[in-house]
């Protein structure tokens, strides 16, 4: 049975309440990562999670709102709104197409997610910030630039590696959480039906 999607239906009451949680999870995840001195930002967990459950538009709103709210304290984050927005959109569309069901679909989904992040983040980092954002990865980028590497190559190289790992960790956390949510809750979410175990043999 093919389900038809409308943007208005996506924003159900439950979805509206998931958005604040997603933003707060992004925020707390970022804080926790820096508290544990991990070399990743891990600040898209909430976006990915919301997009997996409620679809692309809710994910996009959650991503955008994250950067607006963190931008109140540090307006530099406004520049990265497109990155977080695209993370939500792409994850949501992948989830709607049920791309998180079999392991080989996972790999395709991960590659797509990582590619969107890198392609959308690199131009912002290079054109707005001249390659340096003040994060932990900036040190490596600066070293590569001083060694004579092209700024685009330096940014794509360092940001690329860290972004891929970052997205994989975020995705796994989101997936683990969804796996333990009971089916009676999952059915209330737009894309939740995709994660319900039909019988013991189907999902991984």
């Amino acid at each position, binding site marked *: 049975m093919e389900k038809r999607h409308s943007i208005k239906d996506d924003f159900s009451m439950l979805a509206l*309440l998931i958005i*604040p949680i997603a933003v707060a999870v992004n*925020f707390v995840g970022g804080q926790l990562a820096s508290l544990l001195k991990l070399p990743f930002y891990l600040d898209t967990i909430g976006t990915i999670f919301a997009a997996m459950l409620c679809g692309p538009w809710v994910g996009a709103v959650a991503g955008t709102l994250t950067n607006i*709210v963190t931008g109140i304290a540090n307006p*530099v984050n406004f520049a990265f709104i497109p990155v977080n927005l695209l993370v939500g959109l792409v994850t949501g569309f992948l989830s709607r197409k049920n791309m998180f069901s079999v392991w080989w679909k996972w790999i395709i989904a991960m590659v797509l997610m990582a590619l969107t992040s890198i392609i959308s983040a690199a131009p912002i980092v290079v054109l707005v910030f*001249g*390659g*340096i954002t003040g994060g932990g990865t900036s040190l490596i980028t600066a070293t590569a630039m001083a060694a*004579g590497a092209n700024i685009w190559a330096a940014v794509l190289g360092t940001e690329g590696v860290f972004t891929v790992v970052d997205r994989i960790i975020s995705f796994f956390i989101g997936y683990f*959480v969804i796996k333990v949510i009971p089916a009676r809750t999952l059915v209330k979410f737009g894309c939740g039906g995709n994660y319900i175990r039909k019988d013991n043999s189907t999902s991984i």
Partner: protein
Amino acid sequence: MWREKLSIKKDNAIAALYPSAKFLIVCLYSFCSLIIGTIKIEGYPFFLIPWFLIVPILCAASGVWKNFIKAFNKVLFIAVIIFVVQSLFVPSETIIWQIGFIKVYEAGLQSAIVLSFSIMNIAGMFIWMFQTTENKEISRALEDSGMNYKVAYVFISTLQMIEVLGKSSKTIMNAQQARGVETEGNIFIRSKAFFPSMVPLILGAITNTEERVLTLESKGFDVKCKKTHLFEIEKSGKEKLAAVIAILITTLVIIGRVLAWVL
């Protein structure tokens, strides 16, 4: 009908401006910063530096100097790093200064000024807006400008949720440490501590939403009717004057840019 009302009284005329007027000022200022960045004297966009003085002056005049400094530190940190990296590490043909092994390149210094001062200008102005406006004023202004009341609710609810989840993440971390999850050591040990802190946090939050849906629906959140407000904001009456001044300055900047082209 008698209704209880809350409002914020501000003595400072600039800080008391209506949020949309402040937003207009921020937009025009950012636009001007981008234009001024293209006016160059011998390749250097020197005008950006005096232009930046407007931000601290405006903040001091609005009476938010201390908060401004606090918030601006983060932006300044990034701007300084960008400045240093751009001027020292981006090699080009002409070298301006050379002290020992440290070389300052011409093209690097030019782009360093553009990037770091543009960021400081635009980010500084946003800091001014958010330091002089309270969050509930923003959400109320959003609603008044014709946005759905749900948007305003999500915005305010997000700010509250960050506090709530921040607190519960500390509780969870403490509980997990008591159980023996290590949060110090090499990078793998620290990464392993990340999962048991995040998963219960998200799960707990999700479980609570179901109850909050019931609460909100029982209070008539979804009912289609005119909503009343406890919190009101009023225009201070100086919005038109502020807008005229901002537009006047923008026009002058555009004229200046055109003149620089012609001459």
